[in-house]
C-alpha cells in the first residue's frame, strides 16, 4: 500500500462499529496533528484517557498489504475504497513502533472506524523507518 497524495482530515468524531480491543469506549475525536502529515491523534470524547497517536500507514509503509474483510467493510458502510483511511496505532513508549497486526480503518464519509485484526504474521511493534 502506498499513497502519493496527502490526506487532509478535519477534526472528526468517529464511532467504533466494534469496540477497540481492550477498551469499551466507542466515540473518539480524530484530528490531524498540527498539519504534520501523516500523524493523527485519536482521543476519546469527553475524557482525558485514552488517546492514541496514529499514523497513515499508506504514507508510512510501502508494499504493505492488508486485508479488510467484506463484513467489516459493510459495517463501516464503505461505498468507495477511496473513502477509507488506514491508520496504525503508534506506541511512543516503545520508540515509535506501529501495530501492523491491528490497523484501524476509518470511513471518513460515514464517520465509522474499526480495528481490523490481520490473520497474518504482521508485527504488533514495527519500527517506523526501520526494517519491516
Amino acid at each position, binding site marked *: 500500500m*502506498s499513497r502519493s497524495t496527502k490526506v487532509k482530515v478535519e477534526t472528526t468524531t468517529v464511532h467504533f462499529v*466494534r469496540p*477497540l*480491543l*481492550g*477498551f469499551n469506549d466507542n466515540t473518539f475525536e480524530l484530528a490531524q*496533528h498540527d498539519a*504534520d502529515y*501523516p*500523524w493523527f*491523534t485519536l*482521543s*476519546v470524547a469527553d*475524557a*482525558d*484517557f*485514552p*488517546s*492514541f*497517536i496514529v*499514523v497513515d500507514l499508506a*504514507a*508510512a*509503509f*510501502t*508494499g504493505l498489504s492488508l486485508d479488510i474483510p467484506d*463484513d467489516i467493510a*459493510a*459495517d463501516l458502510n464503505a461505498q468507495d475504497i477511496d473513502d477509507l483511511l488506514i491508520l496504525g*496505532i*503508534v*506506541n*511512543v*513508549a*516503545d520508540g*515509535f513502533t506501529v*501495530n501492523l*497486526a*491491528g490497523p484501524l480503518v476509518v470511513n471518513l464519509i460515514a464517520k465509522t472506524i474499526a*480495528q481490523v*485484526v490481520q490473520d497474518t504474521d504482521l508485527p*504488533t*511493534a514495527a519500527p*517506523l*523507518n*526501520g*526494517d*519491516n
Partner: protein
Amino acid sequence: MLVLTRSSNAGVQIGDDIEVVVLEIKGDTVKLGFSAPRSVRILRSEIAQQISSENQNSAVRTASLGNIAFPALEATS
C-alpha cells in the same frame, strides 16, 4: 468454564445464532468451524490478547499529546 467432550463433526450451539463445529482432529490439533452473525468478532485468543495488550500499552492521556515530539517520517518498505 463449561467443559464438553465432542467428537469430529459434532458441534456446540451457543445462544440462538452461534454454532461451533469440530471439523477435524489430528494429533493435538483441532480444526473448528464457526457460524455466527457478522457482528460477532471471532479471533484466536492469543492474537486478541496480544492486540488488546498492545492497544493498552499505546494509550496515552490526551493532556500529554502536546509533550510528544513527532519525528519526521519517510515511508519504509
